[in-house]
């Protein structure tokens, strides 16, 4: 591999630096810094209104940032939007397609826009997704429509696939099938995937890295495994509350009855800090859902969510 190719292979596929965006005096993105390495599946998490869709639209050049820099595949989406769209597969949240076209017609229509369109591969995907080629889009079910949109996103062998909450509106069975189709494609392909969703327990098995966006800022970006390894919940008797509140990387603390629970972002540092604590402290693993919750709605003071946390603890 040449040096250039090596550099390209290692340079981030998505990079945001200090990106800001406001809509009518409401600041949606407040200085987002993000870097997505190539060849990974990147989970982009956040609550409603956190700024996920806004960020994604900026990646495709559909929105202009008020400040900061955006790079996709090393290109500026404002200047090189068309080139980016040729090399990126995009599946929008709740995609809308031309209802009057048949599936086959839509594929034929879309094909000329992508120089790297692989017709054979498109056919294989169509078979795999069991898409009826002669049926008009408007007569397809929701799941079929999403599959058609996924096919359009993948058929041109993109270097980067951006998925904006693609399972929105699908029932649980369909969501499983969709993810299976996606994972099947991803296996063996060194394609970067940027995946935004609410359904963390579904992302968890497939995501290599996670970035959490909250109130217009990136709260954490880390590999999934590392996140799971670092973020833990500590449970101790109430007398240890003061010690727990002083822990470095404290995300959330809650008190119920005679116990106190704290979520920390760096268990190693927390352990070091608790060496001197004489009281027993229990460590618990968290799933991505709980980690996300701690980052996004965790409180270091008495929290209305305290009861919910401690109920689960008990």
């Amino acid at each position, binding site marked *: 591999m040449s040096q250039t190719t090596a550099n390209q292979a290692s340079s981030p596929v998505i990079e945001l630096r200090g990106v800001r965006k406001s809509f009518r005096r409401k600041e949606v993105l407040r200085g987002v810094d993000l870097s997505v390495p190539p060849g990974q599946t990147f989970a982009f998490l956040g609550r409603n209104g956190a700024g996920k869709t806004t960020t994604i639209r900026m990646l*495709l050049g*559909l929105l202009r940032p008020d400040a900061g820099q955006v790079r996709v595949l090393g290109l500026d989406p404002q200047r090189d939007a*068309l*080139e980016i*769209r*040729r090399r990126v597969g*995009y599946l*929008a949240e*709740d*995609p*809308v*397609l*031309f209802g*009057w*076209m048949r599936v086959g017609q839509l594929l*034929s*229509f*879309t*094909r*000329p*826009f*992508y120089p790297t369109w692989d017709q054979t591969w498109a056919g294989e995907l169509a078979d795999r997704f069991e898409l009826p080629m002669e049926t008009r889009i408007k007569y397809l079910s929701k799941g079929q429509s999403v599959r058609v949109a996924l096919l359009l996103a993948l058929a041109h062998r993109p270097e980067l696939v951006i998925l904006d909450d693609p399972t929105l509106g699908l029932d649980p069975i369909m969501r499983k099938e969709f993810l299976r189709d996606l994972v099947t494609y991803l296996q063996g392909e060194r394609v970067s995937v940027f995946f935004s969703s609410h359904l963390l327990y579904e992302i968890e098995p497939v995501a290599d890295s996670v970035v959490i966006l909250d109130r217009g800022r990136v709260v954490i970006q880390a590999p999934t495994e590392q996140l799971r390894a670092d973020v833990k919940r500590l449970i101790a008797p109430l007398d240890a509350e003061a010690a727990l509140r002083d822990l470095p990387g404290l995300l959330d603390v809650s008190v119920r009855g005679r116990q106190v629970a704290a979520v920390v972002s760096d268990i190693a540092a927390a352990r070091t800090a608790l060496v001197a604590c004489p009281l027993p402290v229990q460590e618990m693993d968290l799933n991505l859902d709980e980690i996300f919750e701690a980052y996004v709605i965790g409180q270091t003071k008495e929290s209305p969510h305290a009861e919910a946390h401690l109920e689960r603890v008990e």
Partner: protein
Amino acid sequence: MGQLKSLLWKEWRETRIFLWIGLGIFLGLPCVGGLENTFQSAHRFDIFASPWVFMFGGVFAMFVAVATTCRDLVIGIEEFWRSRPVGVVRWFLMKYAVGLAISVTVCVVPLVVEWMLGSRDSELTLALAWMPFLCAALYSVAFAAGCLIRRPAHAAMLALAGLLLIYFLPLVVPPLWIVNTMAMFDVGFRDGAVFIIVSFALGMAGIAVVMLALGIAAVRYRWRIDAGRRLMYGAVGAVLLIIFATAGYQLGTNLPVLQEVHLPDGETVANIRFDGQRGTVVTTQLVVDDLGRESIVIRLRSLDLTPAGIQLGEPRKVVGRLAGYYWNWAQKERVPRATPPGNPDVFYTASIDWWADNECWLGTYSLRADKSAVDYSEIKLWSGGPAEVRTPRIQASGDRLYVMGSQLATFDITNPTAPRLISCVAFSFHPRYGADATAFSLTLPGVPGLPAEGRLRAATQTPDDYYFPDDRVLCEDSDAGGSQVAAWRLSKLTDNVAVFQPIGQWKETFLEELFGAETVESMTLRDGLLYAVPWHHSAAKNFVTVFDLRGPHPLSPAGHFGAPGISAVCPLPDGRALIGGNQLWLVGPPPTRH
């Protein structure tokens, strides 16, 4: 190339339905009408598509533009194509081109078919040159509206307001004359027609280009007008205000009212006879008795014009024969009649009784010296013979009276009140049918003893023709395809032929049709000002239009006067005029117009 083909395919598939609908309406329906005509009247097959195209072609183009733009600017679809590697400009240029091609095809093809089927009307020929540009401009306005507003109903309303502005604003703002659509309908009869058409085409092309650029920019930079109910209401209100304001400007009464004389309720002026100082006003009033029977009451009033203004005398009701005299007199030129030279109180009319074997009768009305009664006598001229389509023509010259129908009856009117038949011989004369406003030669009827001038008057003694011998001007009104007035000047008169050169032609515009008078009932010419009086039975819409035959663009309306029940106009030597309707008005001359 693949991308363009793809876009072209998509736009064609989405928009072709408009082509079929448009051709169905603008070509199919006229063809049905043409077939019906052919079967009913054994007429050669032809179609009359141009009125439909002229009236609704622009609206159709508008709908096509709005539909094609808004379709791809629905939120989800917009997201889809914007996220594809296709440029906005390319996408929408293709959309524009396909929609425009369809709109122009729908507007032009029916005109071409009409032209090919034989209607080589010069106006239609010229319309084939300028209509596509008008269509392009209107389409582009709607295209821009669709790109800015993105909601079909709202965009259509705004586009409609834009369409009306394009039609009517040039009438109100003189610098915009080059894009005056209304002027294109009779451009063939103006000097420099080619220049006018080329200017119009360039102007419309300019509008199209600007609107296209605006539309593309709106999509490219996501400019948007928030369309809501207020925009819709605003567009509806703007449309109405534009129409009314333009009508007010163009058709508003601009003859200065110098004096108004009120008449009692129900009384309407039927005719005015005036010699400049004194005259008579004939009024009519419809009266319904208790049993529901209707009758017309005729009254006379003397008319004096003093430095102080009009003075009307007391009304004098006339009944019986006298009423018949004045009623006939009030019908003006609709009923051919002749007056012996030097005897204005005598007139002759000829009538055909179609129910009684086409009997032709000569009636002689003679007003007694004291004006209190009328002597009336009738002479039967002929009966039988071919059915006569028109009332016979009648002319007096010297001491001879000539009645021209299926026979020619010649009378000695040395005693005007007792005409004496000299001869009655078979006669045929082909009546002059309306010509378009080009030069034409009129063969004069062969009537021994009647000078050429008298024979010319006889030949033009039809309900639609008005020959003004003092000005040597012939005017014609026609209600075929809307109200029209044409004028010619007599350039040569020989013993057999009268040659006329066109002065100009006027066709009722859309506004005038919407607000204006029904067909012209009569015309009066004085000093180059032609007063066209509307059909007086139409009380709902009536105004007098004054045409200037002297100006650089005859016939262009130079003045209007709207008032109820207008029926008679009597121009005065000083440029003023008496107008009779529900009241009697003395009006000044129209302001100078070009």
